[in-house]
């Protein structure tokens, strides 16, 4: 029997409910409490470099990769393996750090997260249902 999915409330931003959730990032003993926009279309999760610095990580030492946005702008990011906690779920995932994203939010994308957790968006009730795969 599948466990009941975890219900995470959306955030009310600029008058609309948005799938922005609380994410805890771990690295060694350090951790950071961040908000991230859950984006099913994003290939990678992207956080700002100061989050990596808070976790005492050299963000540029990660595996470099390039991504592109809809407007075709290329963005370099550096992938690192970190511990993530979303709701009650603890996972190990590869997230990217970049100073070139150009939006205020951190992004929670598919790479190494959506293969461990299942996200179901309920825009009517403003809830994100999360369950472990």
């Amino acid at each position: 029997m599948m466990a009941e999915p975890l219900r995470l409330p959306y955030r009310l931003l600029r008058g609309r409910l948005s799938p922005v959730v609380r994410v805890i990032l771990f690295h060694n003993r350090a951790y950071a409490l961040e908000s991230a926009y859950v984006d099913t279309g994003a290939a990678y999760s992207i956080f700002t470099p100061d989050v990596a610095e808070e976790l005492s990580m050299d963000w540029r030492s990660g595996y470099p990769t390039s991504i592109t946005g809809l407007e075709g702008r290329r963005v370099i990011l550096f992938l690192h393996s970190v511990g993530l906690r979303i709701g009650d779920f603890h996972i190990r995932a590869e997230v990217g750090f970049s100073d070139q994203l150009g939006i205020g939010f951190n992004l929670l994308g598919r790479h190494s997260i959506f293969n461990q957790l299942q996200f179901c968006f309920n825009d009517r009730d403003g809830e994100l249902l999360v369950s472990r795969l």
Partner: protein
Amino acid sequence: MNAKLSKARARKARETRVAYRVRRKPRAIKPRVVRPLVRKTAAHVSPSVPWEERVAPTDQQLMEWDAWLNEHEPEFEEKYPGHYLAIWDRQIIAKTERRAEIYPLAHQAMPHVIPLITYVPRPGEMDMVPSVFPVEWSRR
């Protein structure tokens, strides 16, 4: 005798050099400009308080803070558009428009806690398409 001669030559050469410089760069000696003191932004330093001694919010607290954030979002959007906020115990302990400054400011305000960092979007900022794709998918 030779030493005296070479000393005189050296002196002459020195004088010639000085004269040459003055002739070439009459404004070589510029008046001293007093520059305004620039306060550098605080560089990020790792927290001096060890992680074991820092207080983290409980799940219950985080849920309460989420509700509080949703409740006060219109007020924050009016007061702090484009700002990053560090939240602890339903209070804003630090706010800044520069992402790189939020952790140093939060540590300065409350060094013993692990704050929740959140962002207040500007008008129209939620009408975004943030999705990013692997670069191999881009059209050449």
